[in-house]
């Protein structure tokens, strides 16, 4: 077991590439925060580490591609998981042709619907947290903000975040990508409850009219 190089240093956690037995892995290490008292800091880091690891393990049961968890070291707030080779969707989205965009976002929509209909909220669906592998598989990563919920509101908020990311970071692709995403989402969610699915999508508009992200004259 060896951390070899750091690949990302975030505000909350650092990601290291390395090997675990003979497997290529990522060490996700939640850093201690000196500004918090140790008791509180330890509790938060342990809770979030366990929550994320549990989520990764659970959602795999629904056939969703997420990194395999190999080891959880809660005392060091570290998750050791499979290294997923591929590109962040964020980095390659503009290089894809229209058919590919539609196909991938349709698939992403189905993946997120699968999570939602089973009561899982990803919490941070952005194009940085979706990896496209060389085999053209879609992997969902970073379940650090994962939550369990069956409410329409929480599911809508999850979708709303993706919508905002698409608008702010991929403006010209937003229209075709988000439409394809919603089509995929509906096709999967409708298998269990089409009226709930409609309410979730309709509620995205309601969230927009509420928040801080819009001009005052458009507010309800």
């Amino acid at each position, binding site marked *: 077991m060896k951390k070899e190089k750091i690949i990302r240093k*975030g*505000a*909350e956690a650092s990601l290291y590439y390395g090997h675990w037995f003979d497997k290529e892995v990522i060490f996700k290490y939640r850093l201690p*925060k*000196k*500004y*918090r*008292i140790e*008791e*509180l*800091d330890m*509790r*938060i880091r342990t809770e979030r580490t366990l929550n994320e690891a549990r989520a990764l393990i659970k959602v795999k049961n629904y056939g969703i591609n997420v990194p395999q968890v190999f080891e959880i070291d809660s005392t060091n707030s570290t998750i050791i998981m499979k290294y997923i080779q591929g590109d962040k969707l964020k980095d390659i989205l503009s290089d894809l042709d229209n058919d590919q965009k539609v196909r991938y976002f349709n698939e992403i929509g189905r993946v997120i619907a699968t999570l939602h209909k089973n009561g899982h909220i990803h919490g*941070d669906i952005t194009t940085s947290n979706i990896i496209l592998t060389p085999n053209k598989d879609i992997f969902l990563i970073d379940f650090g*903000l994962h939550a369990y919920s069956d409410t329409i509101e929480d599911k809508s908020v999850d979708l709303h975040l993706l919508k905002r990311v698409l608008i702010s970071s991929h403006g010209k692709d937003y229209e075709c990508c988000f439409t394809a995403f919603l089509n995929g989402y509906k096709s999967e969610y409708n298998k269990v409850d089409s009226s709930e699915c409609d309410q979730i999508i309709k509620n995205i508009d309601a969230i927009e009219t509420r928040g*801080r992200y819009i*001009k*005052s004259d458009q507010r309800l």
Partner: protein
Amino acid sequence: MKKKCLGIESTAHTFSAGILDFDGNVYSLINDIFIPEEGGLHPALVREQHLNNFMRIINRALTEAKISAKNLNLIAFSQSPGLGPVLKIGAWVARILSQVLEIPIIGVNHCIGHIEIGRLKCNIEDPLTLYVSGGNTIVSAFESERYQIFGETLDLALGNMIDSFARDAGLQHPGGPKIETLALRSKNFIPLPYIVKGMDLSFSGLYTAAKNLLHSDEYNKKYNLNDIAYSLQETAFGMLSEVTERALAHTEKKEVLLTGGVAANKRLQAMIEIISKEHDARFEVVPIKYAGDNGAMIGWAGILRYKAEGGFNISETIIKPKKRMDEITIPWRS
């Protein structure tokens, strides 16, 4: 003689008049603060106190600055956000003065006032600002022509939450400083809800949990008020610090400014200082006189806007109790 501005603050419990020149030198600053006998800030009662006192406050500000009203060149007032009935007082006093003295009038967003006086008094250029008070909890920085809000509370303001808890514990208003003192007497941490949603915060669950501890059978047996005060502060400030750090990492600002009434809290200052150091950012706390609500900050933000855009028409001086600061462009920094 240098041009002078009278700034009038009237958004909540403080009615304040500040007189300063167009270079930012403050000649006088007089405050009158509403302190409730019981409960919180009832808008009607606050309004009554301000109505009874505004003349005296403005006159004292003029006397202390050793000028007459005729020497004023600009009137600035707090136009947003705040309690409607209270905002109205500052607005109409400002309108009358502007008409009688025949000088320009300018409306100021209270939150922008806090940031601008902080930049002036701490001599800081482009900070990430943490503005924490009884009415606001905002992490903000200047980006694309505005003071953008990166994180904020989704329900209670931090100061309001602490004051409300203090009231439930039988402490007199304002409760914040009392809670800070009690917290120093404990090292016994009780786990409480710690709610961070992305860069936003939620304090309502924390408040309820802390309040419930007061009514529990174990109160004054397993733990006492000192312990709750300590745990409440550590949890709430921990949340706030986490969001601040995230915003600092995201914006890559090299300065951090702490302002608002809660900025006086030493424990909060220490936490934000640690984060600033780790990110190689200069850390400044706005001097307490200018960190709380005050007329000087309204005057200074008014001067900046007046220099950039000129005064308002009377029709533009209507109060906006719910206006957000990220809806307002900042021409003097663009």
